[in-house]
């Protein structure tokens, strides 16, 4: 397994480690998943996400390249803005979900998931246009995720209020100085809370981690692992690559249609549109205290209509079982369904609108300082 530069820190902090996407990552620390989840919702959590992939694209064909590769319309974003996207294969299924950053019309960054880093790069190279350069900077880029309602105050203390006071949702700032460390500060995240994905040189990430944990104590900071990251993202109504979005499931009928624009031609568009109405994805909550179990079938009036794709105990909903399902049948919010697990046990569940938990992600920055 690969290790991030923070591996020794995680072990020293007593983290329970596990394999994720080929990387040896912290699931939780001695604080535990529940406490780390709560800390992120109530104060701020700090996540090591160095394992994710970053690519730089430059050149005159950059624009045309993104319009070909990505589902969302990059003409809608300006310098200093990021955008959530899918990369589809020819079958209209999701190779990966990703975020594209526009520095200017001819310089962009794409950030992808850890497990698909290599295959994503191969895909991009395969579809490269003549007048552009594509560079994989993953190995030299450190990335931390600082998320939660006190994150703005912490960053304002370290970088100066003026560095972030005008930073809107999904906007980023380059060359921000955090106590001598040069970072790219992106107001993006995977938790539903206000916060920052912080990019730096790989050689600075350990120092940055220590600095944030030390200075963040008065803001209630807690190091948080991938366990909390999963419960937070599901509550926020966000998909997990390989579960809700995957290369063998067409990307239609999901709560993430905002990532798809039908105004331009992109790889997979024809297949996507041809399969509209064949598959759907929904968030659910489950009655009782127990999770149904991986691969539980979704039943409606005795007919199997789908499968459970993710499940958690939702800490912020009061330890309620929750998850995502994929179905072949369109369902309205509050529809009642049945989940049948591999042991034949039945659970009552309800379709819910997303997010399951509304966080602070879109709050005005000034109100959080």
């Amino acid at each position, binding site marked *: 397994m690969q290790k991030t530069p923070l591996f020794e820190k995680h072990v020293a902090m007593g983290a*329970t480690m596990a394999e994720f996407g080929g990387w040896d990552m912290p699931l*939780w620390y001695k604080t*535990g998943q529940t406490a780390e989840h709560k800390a992120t919702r109530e104060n701020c959590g700090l996540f090591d996400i160095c394992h994710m992939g970053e690519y730089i694209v430059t050149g005159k064909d950059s624009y045309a390249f993104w319009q070909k590769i990505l589902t969302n319309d990059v003409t809608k974003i300006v310098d200093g803005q990021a955008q959530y996207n899918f990369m589809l294969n020819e079958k209209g299924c999701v190779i990966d979900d990703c975020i594209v950053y526009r520095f200017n019309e001819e310089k962009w960054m794409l950030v992808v998931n850890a497990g698909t880093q290599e295959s994503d790069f191969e895909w991009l190279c395969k579809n490269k246009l003549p007048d552009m350069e594509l560079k994989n900077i993953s190995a030299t880029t450190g990335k931390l995720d600082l998320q939660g309602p006190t994150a703005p105050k912490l960053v304002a203390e370290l970088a100066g209020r003026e560095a972030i006071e005008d930073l809107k949702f999904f906007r980023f700032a380059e060359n921000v100085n955090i106590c001598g460390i040069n970072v790219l500060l992106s107001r993006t995240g995977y938790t539903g809370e206000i916060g920052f994905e912080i990019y730096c040189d790989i050689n600075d990430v350990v120092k940055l981690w220590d600095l944030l944990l030390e200075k963040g104590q008065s803001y209630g900071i807690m190091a948080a692992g991938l*366990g909390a990251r999963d*419960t937070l993202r599901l509550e926020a109504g966000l998909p997990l690559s390989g579960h809700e979005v995957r290369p063998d499931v067409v990307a239609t009928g999901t709560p993430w249609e905002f990532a798809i624009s039908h105004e331009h031609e992109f790889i997979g568009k024809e297949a996507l549109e041809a399969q509209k109405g064949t598959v759907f994805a929904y968030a659910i909550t489950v009655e009782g205290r127990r999770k149904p179990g991986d691969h539980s079938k979704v039943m409606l009036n005795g007919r199997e209509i789908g499968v459970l794709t993710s499940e*958690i*105990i939702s800490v912020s909903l009061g*330890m309620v079982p929750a998850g995502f399902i994929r179905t072949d049948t369109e369902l309205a919010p509050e529809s009642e369904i049945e989940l049948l697990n591999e042991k034949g046990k039945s659970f009552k569940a309800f379709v819910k609108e997303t997010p399951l938990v509304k966080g602070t992600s879109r709050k005005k920055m000034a109100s959080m300082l």
Partner: protein
Amino acid sequence: MSNYSVPSNLRFSETHEWVEDLGNNKYRIGISDFAAQHVGDITYVELPEINEDVDNESVVCNIETVKSSEDINNQISGTVVTINEMLSENPEIVGADCYGDGWLYEVQSDSDEDFKALMSADEYDKFLDEQDDE
């Protein structure tokens, strides 16, 4: 020595259950400190039924956490005579006090054969040490 608590009066399985000899072939079963740290925050414990006949190495208990669900492998063949009633309202005790109030259930066996087949505390500690080195 491993970094985990391993009480010397217990015997252990490779799947991280502990067993305590209560005398007269009656045994108490729980999960070890290693397991407690690795399963995460426990939200529900499914215990066997009292008077249920259970086989060695069958799954009779399940621990659910915020993130996953873990089967617990029974280590002593016999009949379940007691279950830890506290866990229905306070499942988190299994993680917080795995060798004390976090015990799971008790089995009445007709021999000490299964118990003797388990690892001693020293053997289990060494086993954990070897796991950490991998």
